[in-house]
């Protein structure tokens, strides 16, 4: 008989908070700079707990993002899965990076995710390039400097392993 692993509630709560922040209404001026919360939180958990959080989580979070953002189901899932794979592949290297170095890698990963989503949209219905779609790459990297210590604290506090 398999019991529920400890800390599952903590994981779910962080996902729900990230999804909520993704759709929270904001003034249009700040809206373009909104960090990619879901990807940030997912990447943290992949780096911290690669044996628990990987492809399946990425796929589910991607599909939920698709439904919440109203895009074609599977588009965000595709981007999330590829980024999650790269992070899970190199989690040991990422763990040993300094926080600033991590932030740079995170920026590259989020850029990749956004590029995949954008290309998928171009392929599916001829989307036009808008530079503002890539602003969150920078803000996400900046926010990583706070998201990482915060989630580490959460992980240790609630003993998620």
């Amino acid at each position, binding site marked *: 008989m398999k019991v529920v692993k400890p800390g599952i509630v903590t994981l779910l709560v962080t996902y729900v908070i990230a999804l909520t922040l993704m759709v929270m209404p904001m003034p249009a001026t700040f809206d373009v700079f909104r960090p990619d919360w879901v990807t940030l939180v997912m990447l943290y958990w992949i780096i911290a707990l690669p044996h628990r959080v990987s492809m399946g989580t990425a796929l589910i979070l991607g599909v939920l993002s698709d*439904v919440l953002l109203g895009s*074609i189901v599977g588009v965000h899932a595709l981007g999330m899965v590829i980024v999650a794979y790269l992070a899970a592949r190199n989690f040991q290297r990422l763990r040993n990076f300094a926080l600033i170095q991590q932030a740079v890698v995170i920026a590259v990963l989020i850029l990749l995710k956004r590029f995949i989503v954008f290309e998928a949209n171009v392929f599916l219905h001829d989307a036009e390039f808008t530079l*503002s779609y890539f602003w969150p790459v920078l803000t996400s990297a900046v926010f990583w400097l706070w998201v990482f210590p915060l989630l580490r604290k959460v992980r240790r506090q609630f003993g998620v392993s």
Partner: protein
Amino acid sequence: MKTLFARGPSLLSRLVLALACSFLLIFIDHRLQAMQPVRVFLNSLVAPVQYLAILPEQMLDNFSESVKTTEQLSAENKALKQRILKLQGQQQQLQFLQNENRRLRELLGSDARESARRMVAEVIAVASEPFSQQLVINKGTLSGVYEGQPVLDSSGIIGQVQDVGGNTARVLLISDQSHAISLRSERNDIRVLAQGTGDIGRLELMFIPHSTELREGDLLMSSGLGGVFPEGYPVARIASIVRDESLPFATVFADPVSALDRVRNVLLLWPTESEQQPIYEDDE
């Protein structure tokens, strides 16, 4: 110490599986358009997240409401009363005109136009991606909202319902890149097709010949052709006409009459000929 991936398939095979799932989902949703029943379920599933997301805003609104002074409230009350008076005056005239219109139409032997039924809904989320311009509203199938329903705000048409959940619905705005609407110029009845550009304050009119009689500033009303939108609601105003003879058609841009980025309350419309009925809550 847990060993990594001691059980289960390797990371690479899981990647392949997840990628296959994503592509399959995209294919099912985009090519086969077969996701609608699942979408209703998924939309209902994520509705709590959407209601959670507007909670801080609602609390702030309530707070600012509760700290208003008596003078502010009475001033607002006065202004609103005056507005009601003015609107009531117009309403009387409207009723007279409607009756007259019906009589005249009966004389002509054409169908009378009934007024459509309406319901007010609140915007609870906006999609923050430039290539999909959508709103989420707080009414769904439980209120009788259906796919393809026209959505208005106080100044004009803003879009149509794209998909519905139990108590949320997603509205595709007229400025979305994949949306087009048939319009008619108010001044000279020229029919045009307006496509969204992905820029929230901008529509592009397609296939306009260089010799068109349209002018900058012309108001464009919905034409009622195409069957989705009712006839005669204001939609956009022509902002610029560029007649570049090297292109096959003139480049015409129009600005939506309603500020699509500032919509907070919307009006759902049930045209008389539609089979669906609005389901009002008891307190309305």
